[in-house]
């Protein structure tokens, strides 16, 4: 992997040069949340943001979008072709996109997702965990691939990792703005990473979870959470790895319609409803449990469907904490050893 250094004084010029590649989006503060928005001036951005409420998934599968339009009796595909640079993406979110790729780019691939992935550049940025982050426990705290460039904060600029052919091209075209990193820069990079790794406050032994879930299906812990949880679906709506969507046709005139897709949540009553009126997740307990099985259990070989970004905790009105639920499940009746101690046991 190629490393370069972007000195602080060149940041603005470098950022401006990205406009050649597409419309640039970055994290901005809006009220008390962060959001990826179109950026005109780099000073609008909050580069030391914790996490955006809606993850960058929104660029590839939009929260709500028209996917087809019924015109003269024919369904016509709708897809914006805007070229985009998504600037300032954290490692957890880059890893989350790789999880989504497995779903949306496997046969049969989602044409909209594919086109938008091809039309977008991802520029990562280093971050400091807050009390909700637990990506370190899931191995998603560092992005090995899935980005074009990755900027690591230095006292006087950024160390830039190149992750793709396009990334190399950007580096080449902006070469006057970049320098070769020296020993001191690499030392600062290591120091930052050290400090970062030591800052994590939440931890999870991901190794044991799949086994635990086998035993925890009837745990009383689910009953406790059924009472606390509102079934509002906020945890799903903000999750960077949730993949469920709902499709619905809306009439715009008696003979014209649009097919709209939107994020869905397995907390909704009809999510498990099938033909004949059967519902395989009829109660809130079933639905609460399902989310945890979806995130941490199904096909553990393929990796977890959680990157530890902390969004579900931050935006749960009931204050339910993802890792705490997993711990309680692990400590539940059928299993008495806490996850962390299992390692040495």
């Amino acid at each position, binding site marked *: 992997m190629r490393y370069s250094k972007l000195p602080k004084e060149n940041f603005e010029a470098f950022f401006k040069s990205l406009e050649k590649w597409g419309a640039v989006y970055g994290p901005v503060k809006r009220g008390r949340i962060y959001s990826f928005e179109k950026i005109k001036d780099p000073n609008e951005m909050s580069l030391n943001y914790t996490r955006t409420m*809606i993850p960058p998934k929104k660029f590839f599968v939009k929260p709500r979008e028209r996917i087809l339009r019924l015109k003269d009796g024919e369904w016509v595909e709708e897809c914006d072709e805007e070229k985009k640079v998504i600037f300032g993406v954290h490692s957890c979110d880059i890893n989350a996109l790789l999880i989504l790729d497995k779903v949306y780019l496997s046969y049969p691939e989602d044409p909209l997702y594919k086109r938008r992935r091809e039309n977008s550049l991802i520029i990562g940025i280093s971050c400091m965990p807050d009390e909700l982050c637990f990506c370190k426990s899931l191995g998603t705290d560092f992005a090995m691939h899935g980005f074009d460039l990755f900027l690591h904060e230095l006292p006087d600029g950024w160390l830039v990792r190149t992750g793709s052919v396009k990334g190399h091209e950007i580096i080449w075209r902006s070469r006057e703005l970049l320098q070769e990193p020296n020993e001191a820069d690499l030392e600062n990079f290591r120091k930052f990473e050290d400090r970062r790794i030591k800052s994590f406050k939440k931890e999870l032994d991901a190794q044991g979870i799949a086994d635990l879930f086998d035993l925890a299906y009837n745990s009383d812990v689910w009953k406790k959470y059924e009472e606390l949880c509102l079934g509002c679906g906020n945890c799903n709506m903000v999750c960077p790895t949730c993949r469920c969507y709902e499709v619905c046709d809306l009439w715009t005139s008696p003979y014209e319609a649009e097919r709209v897709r939107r994020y869905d949540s397995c907390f909704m009553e009809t999510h498990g409803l099938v033909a004949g009126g059967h519902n395989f997740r009829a109660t809130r307990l079933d639905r609460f449990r399902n989310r945890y099985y979806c995130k941490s259990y199904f096909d553990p070989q393929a990796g977890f469907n959680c990157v530890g970004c902390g969004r579900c905790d931050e935006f749960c009105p009931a204050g339910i904490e993802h890792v705490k639920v997993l711990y309680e499940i692990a400590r539940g009746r059928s299993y008495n050893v806490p996850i962390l101690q299992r390692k040495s046991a």
Partner: protein
Amino acid sequence: MRTLGVFELTGCGGCALNIIFLYNKLFDVIQLYKIKEFHMASSYREEGSLDVALVSGSVSTQRDLEILRRARENSRFLIAIGTCATHGNMQSSLEGSMEEKLERIYGTRDNYMGALNSKPIVEYVKVDFAIPGCPYDKDELYQALILLAKGVEPVYKDYPVCVECKLNEYECVLVKRGIPCLGPLTVGGCNAICLRSGIGCIGCRGPLPKGVNPAGEARILKELGYDDEYIRNKYKTFSGGGLKW
């Protein structure tokens, strides 16, 4: 051509007006339906059977009940429109006997106007579909009418206001500002319009029919410093007693 009738019981009239507010889309509706009765729009009235009846307002008088029964008997598909019709709205949240209420307001226990304790129409007749909201979202009605004209039954919304709040990327006022918001309990479909202005949802669309957790939300509101009475009043404003814990 299908036939349509609009019936107004006790309410503010806004839900009937909302049909006229479909504006140019109303022309789509009259392409597909012959409107046989719609008091707010015209004095023209034709007896006989209807494919679709739209009923707004709550049953609050003997006269309301008669109109409702007539609408039900003459129609193949009856839609309750607006929270008065679907949940009873605020008039049904008043407690106490009819005599006490008459005494308090009119100073007499005589019930000249045949007043009844306000109830949603679903308490009296079978309803084929319900579109809640104070007022309801008019596009929801438009969709339902076009679907029915094509022989397709409309589908209920199964999600709370929170879902649409997130789809619009609105800041969560409950989590971030401690503003009491009934979004988690309230059936979606309004596109979280109050949250666009940062105002907490007051539950005007009524509670989600299933899986709703009023006790869970009450716990959160109490943690924010609201007492039982405040929460009870907030819960019953539109839901007609549908939210209890």
